């Protein structure tokens, strides 16, 4: 098998599950909170894509860097973004990690290496290289992960970044989360070539298409890429196959562009419950242990949502701050 020597042990699998369960629960809560009218926001649900960042993050260190996109709260939570500043930011409060200035599309949390969230498709890639360059200069063997979508693979910035990463042997890990759609456009309709993974070869770097919904495969692929990057051998591109369950942005009626059977099949294979069942079947954890983990998560989310909703709003005067280090004169 590919990625030999990087298979996750049981403890790692449990670690991955904990992250995935948090991600799933948080997405469910976000949709509930929006529907209830408690928080108004444009929301890009990642439901269905939880395994990718959960497995990846289990292989990362806290001090590794991550850049992601509007559909990236899963990437951040898996990497350790704490719930209170996350929810407060979603709610637009001063206690949010970005003081309410950034919002869901620009969540940032440097203490856990969550450095850039961009709303411009593909634009995280060149920046992720810069973080990787810093790590290379610092000789601290950190890696820099860049998340992007299948659709983003066709934009110039991604190409420029992959080429530079290869030439400079940067410790950048390119994670293409291929959910087969970009907004309403199918993968086939926008992509020259059969897959994204093969593009790596064009730049002289390894590239693999992996099942992003399979925790063991995803972990091993990520761990191998990370090891390679830490060893100074350069970047890797992983095309992680997955699916999103709630359309492009939440509220979007995806039955207009996703064939019913395709979606039904994907949801049948919902990776989080499947993983849960397998953990129990393989005796990695008991039903009770997992239920306890999940209940804890719900409690933490309750706390964070309450914290957010009780926090103060920013005031117009705040617009003068954080434009530059020095405030803009009133």
């Amino acid at each position: 098998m590919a990625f030999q020597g990087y298979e996750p042990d049981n403890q790692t699998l449990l670690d991955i599950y904990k992250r995935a369960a948090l991600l799933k629960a948080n997405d469910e809560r976000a949709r509930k909170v929006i529907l209830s009218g408690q928080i108004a926001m444009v929301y890009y649900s990642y439901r269905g894509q939880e395994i990718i960042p959960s497995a990846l993050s289990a292989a990362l260190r806290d001090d590794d860097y991550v850049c992601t996109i509007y559909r990236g709260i899963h990437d951040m939570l898996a990497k350790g973004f704490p719930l209170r500043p996350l929810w407060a930011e979603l709610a637009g409060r001063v206690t949010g990690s970005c003081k309410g200035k950034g919002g869901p599309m620009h969540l940032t949390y440097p203490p856990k290496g969550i450095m850039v969230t961009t709303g411009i498709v593909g634009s995280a890639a060149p920046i992720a290289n810069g973080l990787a360059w810093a790590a290379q200069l610092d000789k601290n063997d950190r890696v820099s992960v860049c998340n992007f979508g299948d659709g983003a693979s066709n934009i110039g910035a991604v190409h420029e970044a992959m080429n530079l990463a290869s030439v400079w042997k940067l410790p950048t890990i390119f994670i293409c989360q291929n959910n087969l759609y970009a907004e309403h456009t199918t993968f086939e309709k926008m992509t020259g070539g059969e897959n994204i993974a093969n593009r790596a070869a064009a730049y002289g770097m390894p590239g693999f298409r992996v099942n992003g919904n399979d925790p063991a495969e995803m972990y091993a692929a990520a761990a191998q890429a990370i090891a390679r990057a830490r060893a100074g051998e350069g970047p890797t591109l992983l095309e992680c196959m997955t699916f999103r369950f709630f359309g492009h942005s939440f509220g979007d009626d995806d039955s207009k562009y996703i064939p019913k059977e395709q979606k039904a099949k994907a949801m049948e294979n919902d990776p989080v419950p499947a993983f849960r069942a397998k953990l129990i079947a393989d005796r990695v954890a008991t039903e009770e242990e997992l239920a306890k983990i999940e209940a804890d998560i719900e409690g933490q989310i309750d706390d964070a949502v309450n914290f957010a909703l009780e926090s103060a709003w920013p005031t117009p005067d705040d617009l003068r701050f954080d434009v530059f280090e020095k405030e803009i004169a009133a």
Partner: protein
Amino acid sequence: MSDTATATDTAAKKPARPTVTILAALNKAHFDAMAEDPKIISLGEDLADPEGGGVVGVTRGLSAKFGDDRVRSTPIAEQAIIGAAIGASLVGYKPIAEIMLMNFTAVAMDMIVNHAAKLRFMSGGQTSVPMVIRTMTGTGFGSGGQHCDYLEAWFAHTAGIKVVAPSTPEDAYGLLRSAIDDPDPVIFIENLPTYFAPVSFELPDSSHRVPLGKAAIQREGTDVTLISYARIAGEARQAAEKAAENGISVEMIDLRTIAPWDRETVLASAAKTSRVVIAHEAVKEYGVGAEIAAVISEELFGKLKKPVKRLGGAFSAVPYSKPLETAFAPDAERILAAIVEIAG
């Protein structure tokens, strides 16, 4: 954002009192233009019907009617989109290229300003680029720093490209048709929060045009000239009404075309009122208002009763949080305050 009327729907229904939105007007402008001229083609992300006919539905129904050859969804690649439109326009086509949001023009800036705007001049008039770039922007939906910029001042500063921003369904229709007719490249700026408000009774018919470069006096007045465009023109109309209640007679001008802008109409009004307020959503500093204020101050030197007053977006990225987003751009209330101040 999905239940928008297409021209065909609207035509089929023919209700006694149709409510017309900017969205429906733009959609009909596409239908009418493409039906009249087979050289008009259209491209952009999610633009065709299998992809929903555009994120808000401006192009809905077009690919079904005019075919997949003439109406194409594209990969996410704005340079490729604008480049394809430029190339086709060089040899007889009239492409309408959609850049989903105005901030994304930043990734295609080279195609727009170094190529589309310059090829006629650099070729000594041998080639031309009769294309329209439609794009959308607008605060109000909490989309934050990278989805709401107003970059019209950049394009207005660029020789060779025209800049248009409608604020009513009639103008949306008439300006888009004129932009398509125009022999030169035009940036056509739409505004998300203005798409959906039903504000007039009938869709313009296919001969309706609003000439580029002509402002609209949306309300006549004698005390203060109020200049605006796009979404803020709506705020300005409200402010003008409230001012009237306070006994101030405001002449409200919607620029409609930002480059070339209508100096004649603006200067005539400013000469009449001798007091001018300019308001837009783009950042105030180095914004569109600067050029207009500079020209008015120069041309009407010694004739104004008060300095030209400019209102614009805050000097920051567009913020997410509701109270900040609301504070960012001028609204009817702040425009009214400026009117009252300058009228005093």
